[in-house]
């Protein structure tokens, strides 16, 4: 109770300040009258009584101050005064305030924007219960950490042996063809073992989850609908359980509906179906092409689980041929989803921090200049009894005021720029968590902390400098304090060198990213991405002959469509991150197909017409053609890298090899084609063997069509053509090869653009700093210049003298910047491509670019000063 009362009184003292003050005044007046009455009573005249009383009372104001102190609100009161005073001061110099607030707004806005992404992507946990226990288990080559897909044999072993997990689920995402109202439609699907809902910790929102019975081969014709799919197709009808979902291969009984927004990785699957897996023969389910998710038991650390799985993998290596040279690891699910986005976000966070640092250094310099100009004011205040602490407090409050104005504008700017970036970046900043990006309370808190820290960072040094005034000296000498100026100049010089150095570091970084980006766009892909349309075809589980025949029919029909130049198919399109690694044997030791003697190669399953559609040059021999069929001798085509590596003598055509895989048979190499960047722009093309779909038909493929003009314009005509020959054939994901290329380039491009933009801002800020300092020096020395000119100095001498002052600082800064950049060069090593992090051209260009602009910024005031008329200069004193 008491503290509430106390608090109420204190609040009253602050909020109802005028009233409290008036009451205080009245109370003291009452006392005074008491005294007067007392003296009158003792026989004095009213005037004399009043004089006595006043004398006894002494000065009233200090008493009031003591009463205020007793109320314990003095600090708040004086802070209030300071803020009011700060606002007035800032209003009085709108130019300075605008520059200061704007540069702070840029710095704080940039930090808030990038932090918003960092917060959403890296700091916000995934939206599953106990998401910190969700892990991914993957295989990897013993000499590499690069994750590989999981083999079902290993999954079954892990599930039996590992003690660290509450549940493990094996997943694959082949699409599913479903008969809708308008024929077959391809929907996204997750094929999974029953544990998936246990792993992600949410039960189906309707019906049941999968049971072990559902995974028995031949018994697995049930389906769980995705929440979004259930809404779209069945309008959220709860009576959907028990109904049938018809596919071209038979119908599936609907047994459940997944929870809302049940994302696995980035996407919410349309349907989930049970994976048929026989613990006695898991290899029948497939090969190394699955994902494995797990939930750690409570209290089991990631490291412990990783050690256990690594140990099991060691045992499995002895047991299974397929695990030769492979290990297994456990990684946090969130971590594995943001793996690609993390380095870029870290880099950007560092960059915006530097921008803010430059803004701070810059402002510190400007405030110091103001401090010098305001020495008179401070001297007067000290003379009137203000303590040093009080002065510093007042100046820091001025800085805080500036900073909060900057933060306010910065937050608004961050709000817009976040939205713009989300729209533009197309996921390249966000990684795969699928978290919505928006400014939340944590971001605002971050901004608040940053802006307060900023204010202290740029405000404290000038404040402590300014508060160190000796009122006597200052008031006597008026403005010309040569030594003070010299010290002031030295400190500001250091500040300018520092901000120039930081800006140069950013310029060097931006230069590296830009040059890497240019190199990336110049990579010879080995194919022509423009003018090429792609669409996915899922061929279902028909017989191999049927799958082969339908592709032939589709190609025949599509080739005759007007505007089509060439058409072909490929199982995994380039630049989509999908590959198919396998092994092969040259004919000489193909006989036993001994796995230990297989040579590694990438493989691609294509149809005739593919090389023409992608414009991949045929270097030797021929490509596939209509004459190559199931019934004719087996043929393959290899790429240049393959020929060079395995047939260095050049005699490759006519050689026969056996490629590991289903339906394997000796095949003759009939052609060599140019290398293609299949997996990405930065990796060298790997040896690749092209297999023919017509001889080894796959289940999924992509149609690739080269058209005369505007490929997307032909899309509907091509889909109609497909449906003419194969009415139930589902077509998915119409796209452009060009867009795949754009997607690959999106992240490096965005990073380069952002870092460059920030570097330009940094350049501008540091130029303001350089210009400000030189202008200040010039202003101080106008009088001196006047004298020198009057005594016969030439304007050139004066110009070069002033110019040199600035140029020395700029070159010192540029030099320091280059050195710092060189020391930090490992930071950008994961981002550069085609150049080294020590690339001299980049360093030189950055240093030169900065020097040129900086010299212009110095020349301006130096020139103006050297042009003054001596008479005018001398008269200004």
């Amino acid at each position, binding site marked *: 109770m008491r503290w509430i009362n106390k608090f109420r009184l204190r609040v009253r003292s602050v909020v109802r300040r005028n009233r409290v003050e008036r009451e205080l005044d009245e109370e003291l007046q009452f006392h005074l009258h008491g005294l007067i009455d007392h003296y009158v009573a003792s026989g004095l005249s009213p005037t004399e009584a009043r004089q006595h009383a006043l004398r*006894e009372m002494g000065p009233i104001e200090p008493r009031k101050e003591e009463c205020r102190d007793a109320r314990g609100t003095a600090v708040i009161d004086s802070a209030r005064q300071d803020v009011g005073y700060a606002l007035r001061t800032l209003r009085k110099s709108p130019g300075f305030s605008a520059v200061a607030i704007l540069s702070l707004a840029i710095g704080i806005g940039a930090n808030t924007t990038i932090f918003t992404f960092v917060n959403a992507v890296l700091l916000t946990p995934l939206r599953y219960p106990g998401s910190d226990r969700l892990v991914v288990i993957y295989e990897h080559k013993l000499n590499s950490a690069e994750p590989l897909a999981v083999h079902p044999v290993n999954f079954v072993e892990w599930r039996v042996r590992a003690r660290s997990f509450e549940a493990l689920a094996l997943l694959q995402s082949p699409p599913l063809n479903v008969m809708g109202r308008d024929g077959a439609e391809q929907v996204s699907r997750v094929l999974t073992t029953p544990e998936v809902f246990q792993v992600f910790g949410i039960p189906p929102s309707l019906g049941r989850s999968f049971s072990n019975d559902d995974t028995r081969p031949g018994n697995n014709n049930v389906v769980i609908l995705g929440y979004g799919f259930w809404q779209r197709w069945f309008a959220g009808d709860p009576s959907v359980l028990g109904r049938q979902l018809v596919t071209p291969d038979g119908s599936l009984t609907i047994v459940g509906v997944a929870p809302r927004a049940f994302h696995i990785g980035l996407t919410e699957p349309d349907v989930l179906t049970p994976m048929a897996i026989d613990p006695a023969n898991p290899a029948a389910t497939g090969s190394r092409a699955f994902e494995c998710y797990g939930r750690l038991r409570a209290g089991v650390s990631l490291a412990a689980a990783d050690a256990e799985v690594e140990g099991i993998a060691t045992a499995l290596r002895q047991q299974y041929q397929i695990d030769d040279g492979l290990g297994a690891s456990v990684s946090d699910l969130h971590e594995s989803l943001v793996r690609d986005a993390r380095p870029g976000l870290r880099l950007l966070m560092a960059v915006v921090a530097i921008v803010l640092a430059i803004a701070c250094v810059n402002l510190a310099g400007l405030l110091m200049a103001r401090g010098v100009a305001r020495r008179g004011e401070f001297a007067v205040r000290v003379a009137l009894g203000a303590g040093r602490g009080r002065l510093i407090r007042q100046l820091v409050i001025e800085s805080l005021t500036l900073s909060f104005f900057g933060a306010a504008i910065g937050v608004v700017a961050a709000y817009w720029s976040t939205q713009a970036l989300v729209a533009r970046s197309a996921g390249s900043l966000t990684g795969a968590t699928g978290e919505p990006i928006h400014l939340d309370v944590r971001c605002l808190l971050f901004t608040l902390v940053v802006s307060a820290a900023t204010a202290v960072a740029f405000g404290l040094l000038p404040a402590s400098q300014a508060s160190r005034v000796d009122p006597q000296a200052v008031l006597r000498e008026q403005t010309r304090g040569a030594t003070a100026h010299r010290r002031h100049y030295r400190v500001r010089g250091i500040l300018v060198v520092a901000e120039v150095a930081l800006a140069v570091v950013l310029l060097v970084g931006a230069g590296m990213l830009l040059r890497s980006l240019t190199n990336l766009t110049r990579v010879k892909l080995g194919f022509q991405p423009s003018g090429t349309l792609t669409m996915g075809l899922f061929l279902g589980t028909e017989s191999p002959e049927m799958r082969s025949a339908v592709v032939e029919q589709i190609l025949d029909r599509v080739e005759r469509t007007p505007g089509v130049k060439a058409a072909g198919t490929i199982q995994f399109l380039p630049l989509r991150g999908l590959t198919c690694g396998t092994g092969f044997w040259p004919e000489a030791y193909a006989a036993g197909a001994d796995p230990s003697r297989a040579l590694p190669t990438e493989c691609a399953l294509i149809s005739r017409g593919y090389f023409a559609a992608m414009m991949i040059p045929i270097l030797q021999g021929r490509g596939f053609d209509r004459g190559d069929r199931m019934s004719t001798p087996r043929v393959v085509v290899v790429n240049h890298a393959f020929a060079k590596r395995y047939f260095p003598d050049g005699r490759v055509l006519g050689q026969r090899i056996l490629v590991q895989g289903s339906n394997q048979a000796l095949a003759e190499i009939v052609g060599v084609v140019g290398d293609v960047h299949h997996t990405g722009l930065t990796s060298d093309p790997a040896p690749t063997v092209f297999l023919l779909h017509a001889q080894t038909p796959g289940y999924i493929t992509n149609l690739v069509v080269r058209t005369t003009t505007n490929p997307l314009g032909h899309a509907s005509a091509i889909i109609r053509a497909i449906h003419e020959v194969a009415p139930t054939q589902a077509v998915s994901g119409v796209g452009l090869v060009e867009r795949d290329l754009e997607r690959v380039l999106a992240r490096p491009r965005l990073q380069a653009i952002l870092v460059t933009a920030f570097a330009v801002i940094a350049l501008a800020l540091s130029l303001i700093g350089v210009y400000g300092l030189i202008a200040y020096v010039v202003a101080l020395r106008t009088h001196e210049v006047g004298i020198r000119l009057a005594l016969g100095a030439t304007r050139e001498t004066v110009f070069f003298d002033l110019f040199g002052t600035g140029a020395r600082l700029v070159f010192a800064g540029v030099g320091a910047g280059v050195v710092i950049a060189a020391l930090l060069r490992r930071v950008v090593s994961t981002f550069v491509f085609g150049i080294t992090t020590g690339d001299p051209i980049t360093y030189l260009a950055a240093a030169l670019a900065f020097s040129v602009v900086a010299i212009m910024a110095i020349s301006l005031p130096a020139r103006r000063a050297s042009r003054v008329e001596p008479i005018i200069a001398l008269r200004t004193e």
Partner: protein
Amino acid sequence: MRTIALEPLHGWAIAQRIRAISKDQLRVGQSALYPALHKLEQQGWIEAEWRVSEKNRRAKYYKLTAAGRKALKVETAEWERLSSAISLVVKPA
């Protein structure tokens, strides 16, 4: 605080009362009185209200709160302990 334990008084009266009780030995100047009063008010030991004084002027009357009474007892006891200790030391034996 003792001076206002019986009835609410205003500042001037408190000063007078102290002077009278201490037989002119203690003269509390307003420089000490008012900050002390404000401090006590802030601590919640006394509370103030505006009333019209005997001379028809508005004056701020202070009176003891319940918490103040309790504190007064504690403080008085404390003071007696201290002052008797002092007199023991100072008085010649």
